[in-house]
């Protein structure tokens, strides 16, 4: 300890994670670069995809879930790229590593920051989807919003870890989709199937088997990624 300098108490894992998340979110709130690009990408994608089907064969409501999940996946990648990319300038990651907080706290903080980021994009993108594709704002739509949140937890759990790995490679952000997409597969298959069913007016019970897999994925990968994350930051 340096004499004459007062040190506050070392925060616990949860408190430290919150500090990391708040740091990331305030950087994003002040610059809004990634947020705006993810947002514009989402709305632009929704509008563009509208013209990729034959109107006389499929109704807009039938294609809405597919479009939604494609757009969500790629807008998530935009946010995830930035998560650890932002630490590369001036080696911000070194400052995080020397700070008296655990590696797990860094991971959880980054993950929470990414989750809030993605949720904020979806707060605009989901209503835009409903408007462009003429979906009713009813209970099924609310349930789909819930599924989106569940899916984002799994996506963020895996994506945050890979973001930390990708920035240290020569390919940097080019590598992220390659690493992430195979891992998004179980989340996407099941959430897309579940939301397609709900939007088609089927009962909730028909979506349960898929939702259970998504929840299982969220829990398992959050735990596994927290455990292996320190290996991505060694030295």
């Amino acid at each position, binding site marked *: 300890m340096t004499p004459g300098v007062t040190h506050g108490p070392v925060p616990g894992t949860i408190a430290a994670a919150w500090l990391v998340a708040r740091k990331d979110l305030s950087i994003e709130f002040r610059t809004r670069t990634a947020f705006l690009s993810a947002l514009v990408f989402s709305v632009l994608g929704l509008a563009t995809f509208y013209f990729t089907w034959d109107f006389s064969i499929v109704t807009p409501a039938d294609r809405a879930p597919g479009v939604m999940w494609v757009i969500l996946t790629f807008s998530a990648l935009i946010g995830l790229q930035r998560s650890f990319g932002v630490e590369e300038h001036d080696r911000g990651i070194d400052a995080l590593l020397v700070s008296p907080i655990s590696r797990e706290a860094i991971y959880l903080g980054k993950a929470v920051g990414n989750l809030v980021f993605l949720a904020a994009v979806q707060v605009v993108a989901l209503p835009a989807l409903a408007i462009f594709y003429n979906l009713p704002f009813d209970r099924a739509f609310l349930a789909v919003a819930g599924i989106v949140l569940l899916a984002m937890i799994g996506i963020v759990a895996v994506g945050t*870890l890979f973001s930390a790995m990708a920035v240290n*490679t020569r390919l940097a952000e080019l590598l992220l989709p390659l690493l992430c997409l195979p891992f998004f597969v179980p989340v996407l*298959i099941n959430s897309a199937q579940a939301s397609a069913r709900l939007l088609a007016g089927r009962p909730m019970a028909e979506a349960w088997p898929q939702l259970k897999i998504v929840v299982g994925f969220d829990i398992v990968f959050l735990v596994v990624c927290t455990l292996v994350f320190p290996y991505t930051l060694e030295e």
Partner: protein
Amino acid sequence: MTTISQRADAMAATADAKPVFDWLFALAVLAVAAVYVRAIYFTPMEARLGLAQKIYYLHVPSAIAGYLAVSTSALMSIVYLWLRDERSDRLAEASAEVGLVCLTAVLTTGPLWARANWGTWWAWGDMRLTLTLFLWFLVAAYLVLRGAIDDVAMRGRYSAVLAILGAVLIPFIHLSVYVFRGMHPDPIVLKPSQPSLPGEMLTTFFMGALAFTLLCIALIRARYRYAVLHGRLALLDAERA
């Protein structure tokens, strides 16, 4: 981190770097060729599928070899995280590359077989097909990740992390395809299941599986040797610089 013995080792390697005859590889190629001669000329033609059925003797053995190589790769990557022995990391890299080649063979012959047998190029409801495809993506990502990292220790650790996550991912994909399929009726005409083979075809198939496993091992061994030489060369370059 260079020790004197490592340096001497590197010198010796460059001194006697003459082409070596890979007897195991030669043996494996001969075995595969022999199986093919047997499959094409001495195994009876399948009544319904005709010549297309011969793909089977390439498709399934390369799938077996591919799964073997990929499992070895994942296992060796995880062992690296535990023992930090460079040899296990090299073996992981060698097996992953060979595994990708085998899985590519599976995925190109698969649709050909499916077209002749089920009347369709691809059946998403078929577990083996879908799993193999995603396994291919995983192995490809694994190799690209490895290629994008220069630091040996970091490459080993990152590969291990991806291998662990991949091992956790596979059951989830399996479960997802299972539930996805549960929603659709099982195909009746395009039945994605293997008919049981009569005796002579079964013998050819087992010989094929054996030959391909041998080829897989020979290729991994050759690739491993290359990795060792490559590592030594990098060491020498570092010395000179």
